[in-house]
């Protein structure tokens, strides 16, 4: 009896039918993590506490929605008593005195946080190559990146080490690794999930969400992750629907927006063919394709690379070697303490973004860059508002191609930034968006992106679930198909 590649519901059933004990589930997870440690998917493991919690559940069975389910938590969420590094040397020794609201919500629903997953440093990267703790490997090929920044989470789910993981998405950090590793992930509407206890990168863009093998498991996780939280002043107090309720609704007559301004000619031919096949699949389920225009879409990457560094330079000023995290030795005064700690603690990409942020916010450049980018951001959001008057969802490929080789983007930051070409606009507009597997190219998975209207996660989960009812791309694993 194995839990490898089983869904959350399947594991719950196995536990409740006593086919496997809670302790056996957790023991298998750690034996898998150990077997696949070359993936480097985890930074810190929580083995002792996890086994203890599983034993308690065996003694006192629980009917909580996620009771006994092993979840891998991105190392960007603070976890009380468990080291939280955010992939950075500057937090190498940080043991938070509190847990993020997302962690509390999931643990209150009974889940077992088995460990903290590797990630690009402070979530700044699209290949997991910026982590202080080394590359994560994509289980689909030992020379392939898993994507980023939630690369450890995607790799762990794709390798079957855990059924689900948490991720965060500032410009595509859930969707792009989901696409490159052949799994399903959703970034909810900005404000749906509390950011309290999430280490901030760009506060107007960051949003946490689930990563799993199916849309159904994502819905299941999202039900537990969302809450209105007084501790996050941008947390929405709108009603939170049951995200599972709508999964099987008919797609007949539903409208899919196809972005006419999108230049598909720059993409890998196979990506375009796979994308078009998926659209045909939705048409055969009764959905209609509608051409829409998002004229400012091509400006989303440059807009993001002003807004995100500006917010990051401000957020990361808290890492000063005084209150928590690492502190450099041998300094003569307070200013040198700040400078030496930050210079030794941060990696190259993080420094680059802090510098860009300081530049675009500095006197004389603020209007030309930061204000300008915020104005273009509104134009991008207006485009979406207009489009959603006549459609239910928008579909695009998630990425320009499948997983690329480690080191292949060289040291050119702009080439890496363009990885997020299709995903960034949803963060700028605050819209929910997901990625689900829709094809393979030379035995490497690729994903379809579905963007939804504000607060309409249910509809994109519905489209994704219906697609997964009709196709089996989400069942492919690096070891072959698992039904």
């Amino acid at each position, binding site marked *: 009896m194995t839990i490898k590649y089983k869904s959350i519901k399947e594991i719950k059933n196995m536990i409740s039918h006593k086919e496997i004990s809670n302790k056996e589930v957790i023991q298998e997870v750690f034996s898998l993590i150990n077997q696949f440690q070359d993936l480097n998917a985890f930074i810190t493991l929580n083995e002792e506490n996890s086994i203890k919690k599983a034993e308690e559940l065996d003694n006192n069975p629980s009917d909580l929605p996620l009771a006994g389910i092993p979840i891998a938590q991105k190392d960007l969420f603070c976890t009380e008593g468990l080291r939280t590094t955010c992939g950075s040397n500057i937090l190498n020794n940080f043991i938070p005195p509190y847990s993020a609201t997302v962690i509390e919500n999931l643990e209150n629903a009974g889940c077992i946080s088995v460990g903290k997953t590797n990630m690009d440093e402070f979530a700044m990267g699209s290949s997991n190559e910026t982590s202080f703790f080394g590359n994560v490997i994509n289980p689909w090929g030992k020379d392939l990146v898993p994507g980023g920044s939630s690369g450890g989470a995607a790799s762990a789910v794709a390798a079957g080490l855990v059924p689900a993981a948490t991720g965060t998405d500032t410009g595509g950090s859930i969707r792009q690794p989901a696409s490159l590793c052949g799994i399903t992930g959703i970034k909810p509407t900005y404000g749906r999930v509390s950011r309290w206890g999430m280490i901030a990168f760009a506060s107007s863009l960051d949003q946490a969400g689930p990563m799993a093998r199916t849309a159904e498991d994502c819905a299941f996780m999202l039900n537990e992750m969302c809450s209105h939280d007084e501790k996050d002043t941008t947390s929405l107090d709108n009603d939170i629907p049951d995200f599972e309720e709508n999964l099987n609704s008919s797609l007949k007559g539903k409208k899919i927006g196809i972005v006419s301004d999108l230049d598909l000619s720059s993409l890998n031919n196979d990506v375009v063919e796979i994308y078009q096949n998926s659209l045909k699949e939705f048409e055969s389920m009764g959905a209609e394709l509608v051409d829409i225009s998002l004229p400012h879409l091509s400006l989303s990457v440059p807009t993001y690379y002003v807004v995100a560094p500006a917010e990051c330079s401000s957020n990361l000023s808290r890492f000063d070697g005084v209150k928590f995290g690492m502190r450099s030795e041998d300094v003569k005064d*307070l200013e040198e303490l700040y400078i030496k700690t930050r210079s030794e603690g941060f990696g190259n990409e993080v420094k680059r973004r802090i510098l860009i942020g300081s530049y675009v916010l500095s006197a004389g450049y603020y209007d030309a860059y930061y204000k300008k980018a915020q104005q273009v951001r509104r134009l991008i*959001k207006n485009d979406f508002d207009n489009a959603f008057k006549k459609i239910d969802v928008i579909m695009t490929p998630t990425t320009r191609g499948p997983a690329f080789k480690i080191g292949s983007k060289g040291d050119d930051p702009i080439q890496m930034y363009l990885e997020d070409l299709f995903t960034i606009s949803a963060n700028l507009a605050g819209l929910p968006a997901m990625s689900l597997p829709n094809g393979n190219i030379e035995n490497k998975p690729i994903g379809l992106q579905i963007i939804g209207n504000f607060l309409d996660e249910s509809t994109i989960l519905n489209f994704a679930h219906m697609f997964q009812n009709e196709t089996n791309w989400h069942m492919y694993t690096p070891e072959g198909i698992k039904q």
Partner: protein
Amino acid sequence: MDKKTVTTISYLSRLKIDDEKEEKIINDLGNIIEFVDQLNDVDTSEIDPLANPLEKTAKTRKDIVTAKNLKKKLLEVAPSANEDYFLVPRVVE
């Protein structure tokens, strides 16, 4: 983007750039700024900036202390502290 600008913004950021990396950083930052300069092709004269997708001002709550008695817990994770304060190198002579 030149050496003087990078020196200024690295000081504003409280970061020290190693001499051997300086040229690459000047080059990278210059390329990034050139890349984002395409935003200037758009006429935004009548457009209000959008700082946050919710466009709401941050909610306030009643001014009641909810997180109490955390001093010990928070000082414990500091690199250097005594019973009451974070400790840093001497500031006043």
